[in-house]
């Protein structure tokens, strides 16, 4: 049995052109997992005619993750069971610590990218301005993007997603996921920027 370091040396020596090189699997498995994630999400969203956006994001992520870990397991078993006995359990564990965070990072990146296209005020404003080569009066834009408009679009999205509910004319939190995410984000703001909100100066 080779040590992990020796196994890594052997893998590096196989280079780019030998398809048996396990590093190529470690490199490409998360990328293929990401591709499956993206395709699944887009197909599901099209089938649902644009509804249930967050559900399609979650399903896409888990489908990609499932592929990633099955492919990792199969590649690991094949590598460790070769006649030369080139592998070791610690090498398998090392792959897991590379493939897991890499897929999670790419999947999270895609989810945020998709969500940005869906909800970002900046992105939507730029897209609209692109359709007005002669520019738009500031007042028109302010009217369209009033604080009230921002509020009602979000209330609609959040109630449709089951995060908020309106009971007896009062809005209440129905599901805690965005509250928890918000808590993490506000804590991170404090650590990185030294303030909890961009409006702290008010």
């Amino acid at each position, binding site marked *: 049995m080779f040590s992990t370091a020796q196994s*890594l040396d052997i893998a*590096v020596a196989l280079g780019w052109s030998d398809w048996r090189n396990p590093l190529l699997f470690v490199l490409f498995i998360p990328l293929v997992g990401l591709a499956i994630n993206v395709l699944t999400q887009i197909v599901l969203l099209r089938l649902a005619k644009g509804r249930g956006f967050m559900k399609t994001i979650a399903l896409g992520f888990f489908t990609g993750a499932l592929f990633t870990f099955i492919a990792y397991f199969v590649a690991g078993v094949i590598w460790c069971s070769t006649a030369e006995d080139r592998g070791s359990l610690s090498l398998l564990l*090392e792959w897991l610590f590379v493939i897991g965070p890499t897929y999670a990072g790419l999947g999270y990146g895609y989810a945020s990218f998709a969500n940005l296209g869906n909800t970002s*005020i900046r992105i939507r404003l730029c897209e609209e301005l692109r359709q007005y080569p002669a520019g738009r009066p*500031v007042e028109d834009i302010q009217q369209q993007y009033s604080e009230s408009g921002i509020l009602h679009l979000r209330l609609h999205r959040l109630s449709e997603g089951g995060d908020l509910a309106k009971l007896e004319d009062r*809005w209440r939190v129905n599901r805690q996921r965005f*509250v928890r995410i918000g808590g993490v*984000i506000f804590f991170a703001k404090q650590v990185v920027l030294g303030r909890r909100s961009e409006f702290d100066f008010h």
Partner: protein
Amino acid sequence: MRLAFTGVGLFVVAFVIHLVWWRIKLPYRQLPTLFKWFLLFFPIGFGALKAFGFWPPTWLLSPATAVVALLYFSLTITYVITYSALEADSPTLSLMRWISQKPDGATEADLESFMASRPFFQARLKALDVDGMTVRREGRVYLNGQPSLFFRVIISWRALYGSIDKGG
């Protein structure tokens, strides 16, 4: 754990330096500066690892380096995207947190008042000006030249499953 430690270690060092830098002085254009910093740090970090003998020179162009690069950049993407939520408050998250602090819930009037105290749209419009994506002349707002590659990619992707909501 050499590959995992190298990728995560390089990211952690880049992150700590960024944290110190930001606490000393916030850059004028935070997000582009952050992204450029993490991109730039990768070759610098690898150069240092090679110079101190932690990464064999013969491995530099091997799949091992590509694996470490993929791990480092996936962590970078994660952080840079998360940072966009740190830099500017999210109306959705702000709203949810605020409502969650009201045990009896909030009326429409309460919510309108909360949103009026947080001029999200004005802040975004200013950010677009600062980032050079828009310009204002004589009371009108114009898109400043060709949109960035990132913007075009996100719009093309969005077109795959429908049009973008206007307003709000």
